[in-house]
């Protein structure tokens, strides 16, 4: 019998209990005390019901939708990297504390902010509360944010396929199955049940094919060449997915992918909770020290951006205010939908934590998650199934990446098209869907090519968390304006903006320093890039230096945009406080309910 405390089970269980307590007490307290939802007050979904954009939807449906929309690679890869850098305890603490005090508040408050502003999304709300410049900065920021997500996720997808060759056939098979399902449903008008049965049968065949076809093998072009090869293959797939109409590929693919994805999440959680029975123990150190052991990252501020969506994510506020708020049936549903989905997503982060903590290998990608999840599941069900589980969880990673990334590339081209739509001259050509898609993927490939994934991930995590800080502070501005307590978003928002700007500035600084002295690679991973350049007869130093300077410029641009946006947010906050004569961020809320600003 293993020592229970040496298995992941008690920590996962403790996390789940703390989530319950956080939701039951803190979240409900904030819900009642700050936003005071009224089930009788009509939401935008009811008030502006048009049956196409605004329409009330049952809370359970919205909860499922919100959860699906916010769960992607972030909560999986983030904990994997953080546990490897600093040990499992800091990662676990931030996942749990971050979600309870910051993560859910952002998702929930962004949703409520939109509900109380006639269902407007973040852009128009920013315009209303702060001004046009702030909105422009926000959109410019999104532009870089989507690029960084693409670079981080495409690398992760490529590294996963390279590690588990059969998984490509699974994801490719599911994509083809999705196309067939789409044709059956939309063209042949089949009943969805029959079409789903055919689609799932094809998915099963894809898994079987992936299990037996292990071609090409891992590192068939060397590690560097193979990962770049798969990155290009995925870029092509994402380009096709981003250009063709959603019902042709992405919608049916997402639908079919739901089935293996939900089974994977449930299986990991169950395996982690039953680890005392299966005898799987934590093999990682509890704490590796203040400076990370792969890349030289100080725990503060880097831990808080590395874990990314596992604790808090700016992406969630975009979903909360963009779509979900327009379909919220009653105000009292905001907490279970917005807050509840975030708590649930964090369970995915806990599962990732459990998976990585039970293996000893340290890898510069998310493959440790696959090995760990396969170890947990096979120890519970049957060790002879280990290889099958590596394929299953490898495919799960790919599913989570492709479902969101295909949309991100599409959004990027929409942002670019929006930005150049009112321009004159040749620059308008950037709005062309083929050109804009090609630009984002080529830029992402350039970032991947330097093999500085650890640092690109920090940029991605930093922008993601910084967007969350913007969302929290925007909510604080609104709450101050309508004379409600704003401390519960102001304090986390201030902490996050300080932490994330520091993290991005630190990463940019590292790139700059390395750009001046590129004789040695930043990490062992980048050593592969050096080896590759040497093998083709190119001196690495000038090439790496040029890439470092570009990466530095990206970082410093982000810092500049963030400081400007922070300035606008805090100055608006001060302005509204002065206007309303509020001397403290907290106080007794007025007894009257908040109404739309027009009624004030």
């Amino acid at each position, binding site marked *: 019998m293993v020592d229970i405390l040496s298995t992941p089970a008690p920590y996962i269980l403790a996390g789940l209990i703390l989530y319950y307590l956080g939701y039951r007490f803190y979240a409900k307290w904030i819900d009642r005390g700050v936003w005071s939802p009224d089930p009788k007050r009509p939401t935008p979904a009811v008030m502006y019901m048009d049956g196409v954009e605004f329409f009330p939807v049952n809370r*359970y449906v919205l909860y499922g939708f919100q*959860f699906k929309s916010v769960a992607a690679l972030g909560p999986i890869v983030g904990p994997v990297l953080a546990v490897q850098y600093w040990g499992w305890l800091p990662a676990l603490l931030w996942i749990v504390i971050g979600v309870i005090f910051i993560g859910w508040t952002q998702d929930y408050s962004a949703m409520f902010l939109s509900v109380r502003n006639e269902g407007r999304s973040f852009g*128009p709300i920013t315009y209303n509360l702060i001004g046009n410049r702030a909105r422009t900065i926000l*959109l410019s920021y999104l532009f870089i944010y989507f690029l960084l997500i693409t670079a981080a996720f495409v690398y992760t997808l490529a590294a996963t396929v390279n590690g588990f060759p059969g998984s490509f056939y699974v994801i490719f098979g599911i994509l083809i199955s999705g196309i067939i399902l789409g044709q059956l449903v939309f063209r042949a008008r089949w009943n969805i049940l029959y079409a789903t049965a055919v689609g799932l049968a094809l998915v099963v065949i894809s898994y079987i094919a992936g299990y037996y076809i292990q071609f090409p093998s891992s590192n068939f072009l060397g590690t560097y060449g193979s990962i770049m090869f798969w990155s290009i293959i995925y870029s092509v797939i994402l380009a096709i997915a981003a250009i063709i109409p959603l019902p042709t590929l992405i919608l049916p693919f997402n639908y079919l992918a739901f089935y293996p994805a939900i089974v994977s999440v449930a299986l990991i959680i169950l395996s982690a909770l039953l680890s005392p029975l299966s005898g799987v123990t934590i093999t990682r150190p509890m704490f590796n020290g203040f400076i990370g052991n792969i890349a030289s990252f100080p725990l503060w501020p880097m831990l808080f951006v590395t874990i990314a969506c596992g604790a808090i994510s700016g992406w969630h506020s975009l979903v909360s205010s963009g779509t979900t708020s327009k379909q919220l049936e009653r105000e009292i549903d905001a907490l279970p939908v917005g807050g509840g989905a975030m708590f649930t997503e964090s369970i995915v982060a806990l599962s990732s934590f459990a998976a990585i903590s039970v293996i000893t290998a340290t890898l510069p990608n998310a493959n440790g998650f696959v090995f760990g999840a396969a170890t947990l599941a096979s120890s519970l069900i049957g060790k002879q199934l280990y290889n099958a589980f590596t394929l299953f969880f490898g495919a799960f990673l790919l599913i989570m990446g492709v479902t969101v990334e295909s949309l991100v590339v599409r959004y990027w081209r929409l942002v670019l098209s929006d930005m150049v739509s009112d321009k004159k001259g040749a620059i308008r050509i950037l709005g062309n869907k083929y050109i804009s898609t090609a630009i984002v993927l080529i830029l992402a490939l350039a970032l991947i090519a330097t093999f500085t994934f650890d640092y690109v991930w920090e940029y991605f995590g930093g922008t993601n968390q910084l967007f969350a800080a913007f969302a929290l502070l925007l909510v604080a501005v609104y709450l101050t304006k309508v004379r409600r307590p704003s401390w519960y978003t102001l304090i986390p928002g201030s902490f996050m903006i300080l932490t994330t700007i520091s993290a991005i500035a630190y990463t940019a600084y590292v790139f700059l320093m390395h750009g001046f002295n590129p004789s040695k690679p930043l990490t062992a991973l980048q050593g592969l890039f050096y080896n590759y350049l040497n093998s083709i007869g190119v001196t690495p130093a000038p090439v790496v230096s040029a890439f470092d300077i570009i990466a530095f410029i990206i970082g410093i641009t982000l810092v500049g945009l963030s400081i400007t946006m922070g300035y606008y947010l805090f100055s608006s906050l001060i302005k509204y406080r002065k206007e309303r004569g509020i001397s403290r961020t907290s106080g007794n809320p007025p007894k009257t309910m908040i109404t739309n600003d027009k009624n004030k």
Partner: protein
Amino acid sequence: MERSLKIRKKSNPLKEFMYGFALHGNVTYMLRTRMYMEHLFMLMTLGDMLGFPILPPYYSLRLLPYMVPNIKSWKMRMLRDRDFTDLISG
């Protein structure tokens, strides 16, 4: 009857969660596409009044009874301040 209603109420959350997870995003996207198609249709038929004579007035008038119920929501949608962040649905 009451018992069956109770059973239905108990079994619904899981079913609805599954629907929300698997299909609601697709439905939302379809409806949004329909919204944009409706915008075009309204512009074609009511274009005359807005200064875009796309359809001959005869056909616009023939279609008018079908358009009238949608005018209010169409106007509301067209006048809404919206930007790129409205599109994001994950």
